[in-house]
């Protein structure tokens, strides 16, 4: 029997040469007359080890990484197919502390299975949740999700089940499930890893949502920056259609559900749910005023469940293992697990799925291993470009929705971007406004104009012009943006700005430059 060798097809792995490594391994095996089968799996999430090659030996998977094409011959020399020792060997993958210390529910199959092999999916617990849901009444499915305590993983943290209940309770014939896969926050890649590593899990979650809410059509809105995720999702949907799991009668149940992929076009704002709906309708991605909420009048004016990839991908395990099992993880009102993404200037960047309540320090220092540069830690930005910067003394805060909000930060989509002591926080505040200027949809004035004025004012601070007065002006502008913006783009841009000013005032205390002093 041929030996299985796993080389990820996740785009992060591809970005550092996984395709070339896979080709070289296949060629080397052929030359040596060895019988191997190369499986292209998702990523295990230990991204600093990518390309991470695994060999199946004695029923266990052994890890070697990061493997460059130049290492392949020596791996064969070392007998890696039989678990031979090598400088890049890490032993059994699942015993690597970074991996062993996680609680993988949503990401249970990512990196383990061949993403497009439905039989492999089913052999690893896939379709169990869907089959359970099909045997239940739609209302019972909704209540199971309510009971699990699952909250929107896109950042807002709204209870997923309550959203479903609202849509399920409306009488309209046509309803929709929309999956927000416009993962634009810097420091986040969990949605991409699911779509590339276990697309069936997302599809299963969407079909269950469709059955529960009475929707027969679903859309996945994926950002155009993710071409691999788009291709993998489309291929997975075809596989489900061919297997009779999508279409007029899902798995012969009589429930109809069809799924479509829509591609974004480089607009960050389309991650805001109402902008995304406009974009799926083929329009400019401007935000809608609320009410009505999308659950009542969403896509094409019909009741629509809008959920993030991670929320929907958490549904199958909730159905298969039960609400109580899922709810058992977490703390306070944050139940279940969160896939954290440790990124930026960090030694061991990657995906860490843990129950809510783990401290930021455990994530950044424990899992992350400190900065990549080896220089002292200065700050981390949590929850993307609209999230707050935190200081070193805040790292003992537990990562849950409420505790972080109390500390003046937010969890968002679970992204953590680490910076060392070379970061200039006034420059980051300027960038926050600049980003808002570039990505604002332009519909409301506080965001459209506020971003430009904010950037100009921070530039004056950077040049040392009337620093105290201009900081006061920025604070005042932040009030206006927070209170007056239509959505989180303008409403939360003050988060990174204000946290930078509050926690790192020394970076704003600029001496007038030579030009300004003249």
């Amino acid at each position, binding site marked *: 029997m041929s030996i299985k060798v796993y080389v990820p097809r996740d785009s*992060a792995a591809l970005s550092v040469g996984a395709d070339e490594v896979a080709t070289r391994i296949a060629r080397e095996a052929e030359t040596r007359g060895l019988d191997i089968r190369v499986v292209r799996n998702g990523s295990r999430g230990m991204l600093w080890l990518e390309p991470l090659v695994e060999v199946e030996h004695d029923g266990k998977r052994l890890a070697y990484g990061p493997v460059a094409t130049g290492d392949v011959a020596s791996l064969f020399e070392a007998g890696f197919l039989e678990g031979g020792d090598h400088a890049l060997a890490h032993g059994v993958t699942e015993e690597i502390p970074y991996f062993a210390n996680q609680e993988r529910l949503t990401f249970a199959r990512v990196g383990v299975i061949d993403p497009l092999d439905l039989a492999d999916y089913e052999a690893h617990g896939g379709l169990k949740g869907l089959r359970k849901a099909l045997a239940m009444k739609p209302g019972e499915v909704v209540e199971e999700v309510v009971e699990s305590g699952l909250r929107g993983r896109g950042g807002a943290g709204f209870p997923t089940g309550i959203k479903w209940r609202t849509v399920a309770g409306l009488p309209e014939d046509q309803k929709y499930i929309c999956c927000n896969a416009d993962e634009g926050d810097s*420091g986040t890649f969990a949605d991409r890893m699911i779509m590339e590593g276990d697309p069936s899990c997302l599809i299963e979650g969407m079909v269950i949502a469709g059955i529960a809410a009475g929707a027969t059509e679903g859309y996945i809105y994926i950002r*155009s920056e993710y071409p691999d995720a788009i291709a993998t999702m489309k291929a997975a949907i075809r596989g489900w259609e061919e297997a009779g799991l999508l279409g007029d009668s899902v798995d012969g149940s009589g429930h109809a559900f069809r799924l479509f992929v829509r591609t974004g076009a*480089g607009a960050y704002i389309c991650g805001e749910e109402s902008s995304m709906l406009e974009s799926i309708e*083929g329009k400019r*991605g401007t935000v809608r005023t609320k009410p009505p909420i999308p659950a009542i009048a969403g896509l094409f004016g019909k009741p629509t469940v809008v959920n993030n990839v991670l929320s929907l991908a958490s549904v199958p395990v909730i159905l298969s293992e039960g609400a109580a099992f899922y709810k058992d993880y977490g703390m306070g009102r944050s139940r279940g697990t969160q896939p954290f993404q440790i990124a*930026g200037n960090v030694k061991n960047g990657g995906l860490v799925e843990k129950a809510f309540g783990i401290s930021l320090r455990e994530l950044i220092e424990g899992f992350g291993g400190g900065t990549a540069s080896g220089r002292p830690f200065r700050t981390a930005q949590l929850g993307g470009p609209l999230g707050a910067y935190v200081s070193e003394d805040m790292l003992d805060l537990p990562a849950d929705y409420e505790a972080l909000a109390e500390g003046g930060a937010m969890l968002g989509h679970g992204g953590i971007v*680490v910076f*060392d002591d070379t970061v200039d926080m006034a420059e980051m505040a300027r960038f926050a406004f600049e980003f808002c200027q*570039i990505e604002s949809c332009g519909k409301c004035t506080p965001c459209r104009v506020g971003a430009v004025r904010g950037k100009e004012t921070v530039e004056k601070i950077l040049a040392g012009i009337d620093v105290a007065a201009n900081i006061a002006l920025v604070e005042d502008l932040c009030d206006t943006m927070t209170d007056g913006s239509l959505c989180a783009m303008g409403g939360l841009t003050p988060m990174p700005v204000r946290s930078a000013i509050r926690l790192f005032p020394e970076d704003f205390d600029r001496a007038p430059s030579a030009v300004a002093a003249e």
Partner: protein
Amino acid sequence: MANPYLKDDAPGGGVDPATAAEAVCARHGNDPAALLEILHELQHDIGCTPQAALPAIANALNISRAEVHGVVSFYHDFHETPGGRITVKICRAEACQSMGALKLIEAICRRNGIALGETSADKRITIEPVYCLGNCALSPAAMVNGRLHGRLDETRLQAAIDGAAT
């Protein structure tokens, strides 16, 4: 500046944009909700989404030309003129900044003789900013002709650019 009436410089190398647009719209059943998909495909087919194509799209989808123009101009992905033969999308979002992306951008732009957001006069290369490619644990990141690259420095990125040219 290149003569815009020269055939080689015309979008799609001489293909009539209106005809190309009509074909793409027809492939999508002239569904106005598919406008983004239509524009992506048109850009793939002829290299850009030029003004000359917009009336044909508006007509096919039974929406106003202003609505089509509004969509084309709203999204960063759509360009009215074709870019260079090599397109480099280089990330300048926070995670990549934390790993020196701004210095990398400066170096790579200088080395290729253009500013960020520009296309070289000989149409060899376009370097544009992008805000997150989802490769934040392997920063800095860039996409070269649709292919993602991570753990970049100037040498590695230039090698990727040169590799795309051949």
